[in-house]
């Protein structure tokens, strides 16, 4: 029994090998492919600017997908692959812009909008005309008389 198990164990790496996929001419494991897709999803295709490299059919996007996969196979970290792209195409290649002086205003926009909204709300509340004081019993009586 033990022998059979050991025998089967010896085949485990082969099983892992069977999980290989080929994308854009690069063969890699399913885990590597998932990682490459996650990287490509965060990069903008510069030819068709609102598509990701992963989702674009442009030639340049395909070439960049190949480069990403080659780097993944070589064991490069996600960060260094992103850095590779930024060095060549600038931060515009990142679909999620980094927090740098150039993008401070961009990231400050939601809190600024909230503050302006609260200010408007506050001013509007303060200038709301206060309703007239309720009629006194005497006035109510007189009103009734007048209406009759």
């Amino acid at each position, binding site marked *: 029994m033990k022998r059979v198990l050991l025998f089967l164990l010896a085949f485990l790496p082969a099983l892992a090998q069977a999980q290989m996929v080929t994308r854009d001419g690069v063969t890699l494991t399913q885990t590597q492919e998932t990682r490459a897709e996650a990287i490509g999803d965060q990069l903008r295709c510069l030819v068709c600017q609102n598509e990701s490299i992963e989702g674009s059919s442009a*030639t340049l996007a395909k070439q*960049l997908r190949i480069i990403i996969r080659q780097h993944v196979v070589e064991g490069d970290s996600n960060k260094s692959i992103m850095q590779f792209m930024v060095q*060549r195409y600038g931060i515009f290649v990142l679909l999620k812009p980094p927090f740098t002086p150039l993008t401070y205003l961009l990231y400050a926009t939601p809190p600024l909008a909230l503050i302006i909204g609260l200010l408007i709300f506050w*001013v509007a509340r303060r200038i709301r005309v206060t309703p007239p004081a309720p009629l006194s019993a005497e006035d109510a009586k007189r009103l009734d008389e007048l209406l009759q």
Partner: protein
Amino acid sequence: MAMSATRRRLLFGIPLALAVVGGEGFYTILRRMQRNDYDPHALPSPLIGKRPPAFSLPGLNGGPGFSNLDLLAPPRPMLVNWFASWCIPCVQEAQMLDWLTKNGLTIWGINYEDKADTAAHYLAQNGNPYTRIATDISGLTAINWGVYGVPETYLIDKTGIVRWRYAGPLTPDIVNGTLNKLLRRYS
């Protein structure tokens, strides 16, 4: 109930001030776009202020190619122009490149993802403004330069540093408005 004078002034003044500032901003953008000073679609190239990345490319049909080492110290500022025979905007700028060459500007070309015979045919038909032509068949050097489409033009100064990148065909407006100024500044 009466509003206080300050509040009335603020309620009138703040939106007015915002409209003035916003209007001024939009006006500046539009005026600069009209003067070709500003292109909202232009992407800043990370190569500006740096030397081109290391590369060595063969020439076209046995001609001499060039490498990054050949761009280290040109005698005068020069252009490196990426082109391809399959690229329609390249045909549009061909006349302008010819005119620039005839007026003494040095232009080197890099033929991007092309075939030698079609590239030769293209040059025979549209004129050859290039002193030297390198061929980037794989397009990998283009990726290292950050080229994302042809034509793209890079201005290289006398110290070999990239000073300007223009993506798209060179038009008289771009040449008169931007390129001439830069050539004067770096000559």
